[in-house]
């Protein structure tokens, strides 16, 4: 079971969180023209990365904040966690 540092609450076990997928995906702005390909990339297309990956988790059984977690998908090592409003520097 992973041990995740919630930037708001501190170290918490994985079973307090729910997973939210790739954190680097940005939702296209509302009302803006967008090609089919770009929209597909936003809605469906995800890479199944091996290695470092920024992903979203929500601390549902805690502060209910969405957070960003940099995790190695192969080793489960967690390098960094950020608040929702903090930018990822890739």
């Amino acid at each position, binding site marked *: 079971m992973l041990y995740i540092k919630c930037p708001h609450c501190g170290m918490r076990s994985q079973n307090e969180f729910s997973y939210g997928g790739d954190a680097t995906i940005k939702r296209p702005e509302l009302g803006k023209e967008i090609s089919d390909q770009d929209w597909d990339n936003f809605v469906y297309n995800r890479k199944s990365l091996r290695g470092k990956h920024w992903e*979203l988790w929500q601390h549902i059984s805690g502060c209910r904040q969405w957070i960003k977690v940099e995790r190695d998908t192969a080793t489960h090592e967690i390098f960094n966690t950020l608040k*929702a409003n903090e930018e990822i520097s890739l």
Partner: protein
Amino acid sequence: MTQNFRLESGGLINRGKKISFKFNGKNYFGYEGDTLASALIANGVHLIGRSFKYHRPRGFFGAGVDEPYAIVQLYRNGETEPNIKATEQELFEGLEAKSVNCWPSVNFDVGAINNFLKIFLPAGFYYKTFMWPKSFWYKIYEPFIRKAAGLGTASIKHDKERYEHKYEYCDLLITGSGPSGLASAYAAAKNGAKVILAEDKSRFGGTLLTSDVNIGNQSGKEWADSIVSELKEMSNVTIKNRSQVFGYYDHNMLVMSERISDHLPKTKKYHPKQKLWYIRAKEVLISSGSIERPIVFGNNDTPGVMLSSAAKEYMKVYGVLVGKKPLIFTNNDSGYETAIEFKKNGINPIILDTRKEPQSEIIDEAKNMNINIKNSYVVVAAQGYKKVKSADIAKISDDKEKLGSIENIDCDCICVSGFWTPTIHLASQSGNKTKFKEEIDAFVPGTSKQNEKTLGAANGIFTLEETLKDSFEQGNRLSKKITNNDNKVSFPNVVEKKSAVHDKFWCVPLPKGKNYKRFLDFQNDVAVSDIEIALKEGYRSIEHVKRYTTLGMATDQGKTSNLNGLQLVSKIENKVVPAVGHTTFRPPYTPVSIGAIVGREVGKHSKPTRKSPMHSWHEKNNAVFVDAGVWLRPRYYKRGDENLFEASKREAKNVRTNVGVCDVTTLGKIDIKGPDAAELLNRVYTNAWLKLPIGKARYGVMLREDGIVMDDGTTTRISENHYHMTTTTAQAANVLSHLEYYLQLVWPELNVNVVSTTEQWAGAAIAGPKSRDLLKKLFPKSDVTNEGLPFMGYIEGDLFGVKAKIFRISFSGELAYEVNVESDYGYFMWEKIIEIGEEFGIQPYGTEALSTLRIEMGHVAGSELDGRTIPYDNSLEGLLSKKKDFIGKRSLTRKAFAAEDRQKIVGVVPLDKKTSIPEGSHLVKDSNAPLPNPKLGYISASCWSVEHDNPFSLAILKDGKNMIGKKLFVMSPLKNKVIPVEIVSSHYVDPKGERVRS
């Protein structure tokens, strides 16, 4: 029965307390502190079971967790449990155990015929023998294997025992209470660290209980006892016996199973049988010791052949002799320690040492005691079927390839020592890259991946002094890092006898003309010849060899077999052992009961039930309940002999003619506040929200980004910046997360707060033509006329002193209201509605009537909003704003979503107006078409229309908009039904929606 093999004195058992037990139907006695194994051996019982594959007789091989054979079926407290190791099961009064793998009995076993038909059972025997023909598997092979080769039988009864889970955090978790565990725990505890020390056995001390050493002028056991009693007094230390740390998982989380009541005849009321500990440790010290390795020789699985360390433990801990004519077969000094212990107890052992001229203090001691030592000697084969009767022994050449002439000597047990294998299972599970240590021909932990460190014998350190020194140091160093204390513990004076180097000899060659089975893996019956076949057949990777031959699999996890298997593969493949590599060690290290894994999450605890504040009223009024997600809701209220169909019809009819009341507390409720609340709603709902006046409710539909309908519900504007959102019961949690996602990550600039208020409000839906009359009496001070409270209106009212929210919304299609009060007043509200509603003929209605009412009205619900439909499919396209963007809008332009013949909701009526249509049935054009018959759609919900008094269903049908009036067939292969039907509008009642506005 007398205990013929019990020593007159000695051991750590309580001879003052006799305990009676039963094995295979026979009565025996043992003492308090015995294991089932030690008590059976004391009674001269060595035949305990049959082997897995060949059904050869099985005895005891070890004295603890290393035991591969002695697995029994246990009976206790009216329950039975398989897979119990006799060497671990402590004796209690009335214990009953039986052999497994024996059919019909341990002494006469049909399966033993396999032993003489080995040709059928070589390596990969499951794959080869039982794979063809396929049809034989279920009827012939599987039942046979299950009957003849099981490892016991699981009980199919409900387990009445209690199992618990515990989450624990500590600075240091130390796994094992031998010398390294005690020393490191002591040093860390002195520094004030929070320490958990776990010992698998009932007694603390590990090898200190059996080794002849001196620490600080105390015997090993005395020293262990004093450290343990001091640790027990310290508030920062948790010290647990009967507790096996069996798994090392990610981020330094380990799981330990504590056997709380397994050693007692009966669990005390409210006491758990076992407890599973989830331990998050800052640092882990693995002090799990080592397991003696066997030497491989002919018939080395005969009962009476066992590890020399086990024989010593039976004498020193249990006061039991494993035999009276012992033969010790060793390649190192450990065998001598066992021989010395026999000699001290008046037994004359013979030592066969594979070494030519070893010299050490221990060997000198043995010589001084006049023990018969034969150097450069090996056991070629054990003789005897159900128990060792003699041994074929021979001299072996210096290159260990040639055997001298075979001699046969009498013996009743053969105690084997092939040196020691560090127990690296936990380290390996943690991700540690193990490395091969040449001097001990075994793997030891290498580079750590997590915060773990291995100590003492588990790390390949076999001298006590070095072990203690290193363990004190590591305990101090790691705890200092955490607590910043540095309380040095003075190092005690250690006296131990020095050993000579061991001989890297592990397998006795076969004598000419003999074809003895030489076993590597005793639990899985894997012999040298099986590995040879596997390699001949082309298996190379050790992981493949493992799977093909079952070497090192199952509950044993290769505890005694792993290294000898690797030695063999490396020899045949002409590779060094590290190049072959070992297989992955997987948790659990020892078997864990399913009960312990499940814990308290059984029955109603597996999913806590939510009940509305009106629940007890429903109970008192004959409600029949149904699970609605986590909630329990009344399905119908039974009157007299009514069944579900009759009751729900009556309730629905009463709504259409008089007035009904339904408990809608379970609906999800989200409170939304902030100056940008309307903007948020406008973005997440498909319709327009910016101009909703205060005191008005609006129906809204939410989509996922992929255009699929996520949820629907009404949201009411309570005040300028305050909205009350409702969701379906099932989607409440998802909708909240969905809103939080957009507010926190996508539009952080919106100034809005959302919070779930589902449990804060009790809700009652009052529906029917007489609902306004009732409302007038409930809220005499409020204006509830059609003008004062129009359709989709909202007011606050006073319900006999209780503040209430009144929404004029309808799910039934009738004139209807929803009244919310704070949960604590829910029961009061309900009673008042029933009491005052009496004169209007009010009846409570359950979810079944609720469904009927919404289905015949064509209102969509969960069975239509099933994660596969878009707004158009549910005839909700009128709610899609063309002027603004919203979540999911862009996806609706996908080709398939805009297709001309896109599926759409329709109504379905059977032509005979009598036959009920099963939900989930398919709609087809031609009921006689060959299979697969093209499917045009499916029935999403069915009811008996109370308005028309005939069956009515909703369906999602291809090209639904052009299908009204068409005749199709409903097919339900499951119910074997074919029903001719007509497609009608989904709005089967009041299509213009006049009643809700009346």
